[in-house]
């Protein structure tokens, strides 16, 4: 693994998340106390199956149990983590308007750099040229000569580009990648509808994990992702994309964790 202090801090953040989830969140309490888990083992003698990781569809079905006992939201944020990854996802440092074109994302991304605004465009609405306020906003921004960044599935981005007037410069685009459907470079964001943005495809061609906010663990069921900084809904050791086998190791160029599937 990459430099050992950074790894230890990353690992410590994960262990804190596991401990907190076991002590306060009904879903993980029930799963790990009754079935068990590994790495770490919380109840002596109970190691469970799949290392204690849960498939995303099961977590989604039991979202009501992902809020801590003290209360909290049970609504996932599919746009979580986008702002922190944009710096690595494009060559430009900032854009006036960041548009997420995805049917799973209902609320605009938060935490964007100063001067940037975020908005959401449903793919179906992208075809309603002229009538859609977000589309008008994109056109106006481009007409003013300011930069627009469109994020979403490649086919949705193509659809958006087709709807914009040909005389305008095209928006910058960063496609979504799903863990079970990895795409090519040079840019891209690893996205999951439940957990949000998890990593970024950088110029080295490797999929870098958002290590400040996400932990990845290899389990028998596949790569399990943990959102470190969101406590409700608490999402720990979630197998996304049906559980995709893979490895976590250090990027030789950037010395940060990358995943190989």
């Amino acid at each position, binding site marked *: 693994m990459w430099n050992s202090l950074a790894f230890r801090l990353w690992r410590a953040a994960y262990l804190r998340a596991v401990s907190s989830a076991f*002590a*306060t969140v*009904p879903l993980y309490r029930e799963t790990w106390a009754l079935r068990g888990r590994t790495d770490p083992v919380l109840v002596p003698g109970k190691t469970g199956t799949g290392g204690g990781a849960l498939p995303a569809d099961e977590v989604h079905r039991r979202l*009501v149990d992902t809020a801590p*006992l*003290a*209360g909290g939201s049970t609504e996932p944020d599919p746009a979580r983590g986008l702002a922190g990854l944009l710096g690595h996802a494009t060559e430009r440092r900032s854009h006036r308007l960041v548009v997420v074109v995805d049917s799973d994302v209902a609320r605009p991304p938060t935490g964007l750099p100063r001067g940037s605004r975020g908005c959401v465009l449903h793919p179906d609405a992208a075809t309603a040229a002229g009538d859609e306020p977000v589309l008008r906003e994109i056109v106006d921004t481009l007409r003013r000569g300011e930069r627009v960044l469109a994020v979403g599935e490649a086919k949705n981005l193509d659809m958006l580009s087709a709807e914009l007037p040909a005389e305008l410069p095209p928006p910058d685009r960063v496609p979504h990648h799903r863990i079970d459907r990895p795409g090519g470079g040079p840019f891209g964001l690893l996205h999951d509808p439940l957990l949000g943005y998890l990593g970024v495809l950088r110029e080295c061609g490797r999929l870098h994990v958002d290590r400040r906010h996400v932990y990845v663990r290899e389990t028998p069921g596949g790569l399990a992702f943990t959102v470190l900084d969101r406590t409700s809904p608490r999402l720990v050791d979630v197998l996304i994309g049906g559980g995709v086998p893979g490895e976590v190791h250090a990027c030789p160029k950037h010395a940060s964790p990358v995943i190989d599937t």
Partner: protein
Amino acid sequence: MNVEISDPRFDPEPSGWASFVGSHGLHPVWRYPLMRLEAWTARNPPVLAVVREHGRVVGGLQVMVCRSWRTGRFGPPAPRLARWRPRWAEVYLPLHSGYPAAAFHPDADARAAVREFERALVRWAGPGLLGVLYRAMTADLAGAMAGPGRPCREIDPAAVLNPPATFEAWRAHLDDDVRATIDAIDADPEVCTDVGAGRSDLDPTELAALLNAHRARQDARAWAGGQRSRFAGLHLDTRSPVSPAYLESLLRRSNVLTRTYRTPAGRLLGFSTMINDRAAAAFHHWAALPKADGGVPGLHRHAYAQAVAKAVERRATTLTAGRAMLEEKAALGFRDVRELHTVAAPRPLLGDRRGPQAAPPRETPQRTTTPARTGRTT
């Protein structure tokens, strides 16, 4: 007489306990595997105190060792240092609050057993134990637990019905509007219902979510209505949300009837569970969607009617229906009550053998018979 205390999370089932539960007709909440599920998913996990005489099980108490009313954490395993932390114990069935959490063989000396239990609990819990609260005890049990310096007070009673010989006889005593509501639900094509025992075809997550939301709503309403002293209310609550794992295991038991109400599209409107024992049937859980979320008003009346029909069919001696909404239950024929008492035993008096109770609880005018000294059959 000696008492052994077991933490269901870690300790194996005490020998002889399962047969004691079976022979005394105790409800499923006393089954050790269910206690284990409950303990792992509780803020204040219950432990089981088994009373033995000459090695034979003659009684048992379920005890919650509580750390706080408002903790947002599940109960931790008991490390050695926690023995100094202030805690109190509640002898209470958190998921079956109309019944006492103590059961003794009819021939056992309940007073001696309780005092022995208190001494064992002090040893087990450590110096941080502040006292024991015996909640929802029947009059005879409260008498065994009371004594000088132990305050005793009467709390909300449990509603009781002694089922008549026929369902029609029960129905004849209902008010017209109650009968009309039941008939309207029966005739409503938008309400589909099914019932079964030992069910494994239900989604426990869906049911648990509805049940926990229903309980939270009830408790918020009680609090808003000024019921500050309600110990089972969320604001002073030592209980925990019901977990899907617990509910799944409970519903799979052969003596637990589960009835669901759904729309024709399959949306869950409400459900009830009933412990369908011949000696002592109990309307156990009830939860429904509020009207504002698409719920059907009066659904609970239909559920109670169906429970009475099952109790009549089973020829149950009694059917109990919990401690809340007594007026509504009286309208459904549950006009008898079982009086319940809470006794507080402060730490200095735990294990104290002194004299009879200071203030004997009043005799309940409409009490019904009990097979074991648990009061759990009314």
